[in-house]
């Protein structure tokens, strides 16, 4: 198994906020490309912090964080921001959308921000790609609406479209279904999986809800890999 086939390869990662106690202490964590990984753990086990490190927003204090073969720990803040813009799509638990932008503008935001994401639209226009993605996620009729008029489920689908536009290699989702009821969770996940598969993206999905575990190809229990978890 070569290093390039790994989407994520974490070695000896340690992280803490300021001079507080260690929040992350992960000797080893690897995810192969194309994995649909289910990362679970109770609150306080460092889930959101780990995602922050993997997305390059937080800088590890020790160790290596190789994402797509690049060690984020060795990159400057600006380089990590650029890396995230190019390679990572992020979905929050809720309140994913910028309130003053339309649905379409929210979806196209990463493509407008990063030239490489824009270049990967396969020649199609930004708006056409956004419309296609929205169709796939069954929100094609909402593009012109202000985001404040959407239901929570619709907002999460818009957020998924935004994460997927320009085909980033890694999709990070931080409990994106916790505000949805059960039926909608499964429907949302199936749509998300289909799109990740279409783009060949690795999905890192975090949840404290193990009922969804069966739908994933790989499960990581954070309390098991993070020695700092309690």
């Amino acid at each position, binding site marked *: 198994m070569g290093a390039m086939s790994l989407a994520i390869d974490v070695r000896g990662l340690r992280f803490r906020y300021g001079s507080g106690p260690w929040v992350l202490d992960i000797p080893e964590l690897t995810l192969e490309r194309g994995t649909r990984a289910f990362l679970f753990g109770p609150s306080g086990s460092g889930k959101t912090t780990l995602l922050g490190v993997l997305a390059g927003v937080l800088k590890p204090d020790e160790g290596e964080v190789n994402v797509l073969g690049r060690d984020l720990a060795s990159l400057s803040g600006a380089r990590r921001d650029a890396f995230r*813009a190019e390679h990572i799509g*992020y979905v929050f638990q809720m309140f994913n959308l910028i309130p003053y932008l339309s649905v379409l503008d929210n979806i196209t935001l990463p493509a407008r*921000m990063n030239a490489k994401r824009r270049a990967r639209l396969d020649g199609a226009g930004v708006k056409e790609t956004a419309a296609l993605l929205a169709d796939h996620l069954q929100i094609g009729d909402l593009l012109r609406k202000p985001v404040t008029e959407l239901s929570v489920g619709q907002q999460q689908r818009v957020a998924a479209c935004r994460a997927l536009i320009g085909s980033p290699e890694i999709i990070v989702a931080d409990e994106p279904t916790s505000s949805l009821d059960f039926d909608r969770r499964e429907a949302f996940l199936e749509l998300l999986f289909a799109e990740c598969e279409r783009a060949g993206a690795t999905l890192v999905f975090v949840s404290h809800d193990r009922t969804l575990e069966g739908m994933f190809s790989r499960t990581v229990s954070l309390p098991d890999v993070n020695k700092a978890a309690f």
Partner: protein
Amino acid sequence: MLVLDLALKSLRNRAFSTSLTVGSIALSVALLIGVENVRVGMRESFSNTISQTDLIVGAKGGTIQLLLYSVFGMGSPTNNLSWDTYREWAEHPAIEWTIPYGLGDSHRGYRVIGTNEDFYRHYRYRGGQAIALAEGRAGSEVFDVTLGADVASELGYGLGDAVEVTHGIGEVGFLNHDQMPFTVVGILDKTFTPVDRAVYVTLEGIEAIHFGWEDGAPPMPGDEHTHEEVLAMDEIEITQVTSFFVGTTNRRDVLRLQREINDYEGEPMMAVIPGLALNEMWQGIGYAETGLRLVTIFVVLVGLLGMLVSLYTSLNERRREMAILRAVGSGPRSIVALLVLESVCLAAAGAICGLGLVYALLSAGQPIVEAQVGLFIPIRPPGSVEWLFLGAVVSAGFLMGFVPALKAYRTALHDGLAVRV
């Protein structure tokens, strides 16, 4: 361009607070530029009042006082000069022309000025413009009166109307020269100077209404002169003038002539150079001007502080937005750029609206100010001072934008992708 687009959409989303902020900046900028315009207008209007007059001569007293009562129709003259003294100086070889003024009476609050044809011939204002008649002729007979443009329009007088003169200067005098009515024979063109607000009669007319008033009180019964008696006189002897304007043959003689007049032994008198006296007057007013300008600058600062407060207090509810922007790849610097840009947009919009407001107010208020206080404020395209002010406001907006921006920068670094409270 994306950041600008975001900034504009974000401001539009908060339309109410945005318009309040822009409105308060616009009002303060309008005040700043408006005050500047009025100041320049006043200065110009004052220095345009008189032109080509080298010296103003009157009884000894304050130089500014002489300027005020002779040129601006403000304040009261203290003493008169004798006609003989005036004639003596009028014949002086260095003097080309003079305009005698007899002051001290009024008509319904407007100053009555006794003068002669030299006024119509030599008086100049605003870069050498001469007095012109709109209707009728220049007064030359004893009971002729020529009205300034504002006097005629505000009191509704026309040619042939009778005008009474009040002794002293005031809206309601109780000592009226009512047995000596004057007749309107001419109305002057508008000059936008105090000339518009004065009533011109002849020096003989001034003498005639004061027959029997030599001790300063109305004539005793039996000592009065009637209109007819005055008209029957062959010649009315002029005894005094209040002040006179001097044009020299050669302007190089002005200082020497001034010294000569000030040293005159026949009568205590003085000569002032209008330009210098005006400057002296402005120096006195200059403190007030500086104070006024400081106040308006502070008002602009308060307007900008309002913007600062509004941006700063919005930051907490925008933490989600910042986290989302970070998640899609914005660096903390883009967050700073977004907030600074919002601040600059607010300041620029406020500055432009303020400029528009000034012109709207000026064009609406110009006739009113002119009618009420006789001050003509010229409307001209924004000059270097206005652009300087606008540039300063936008720059201040730029600098102030860094206060919320740096706060957002720290929050963005601290929050990362999670909003920690």
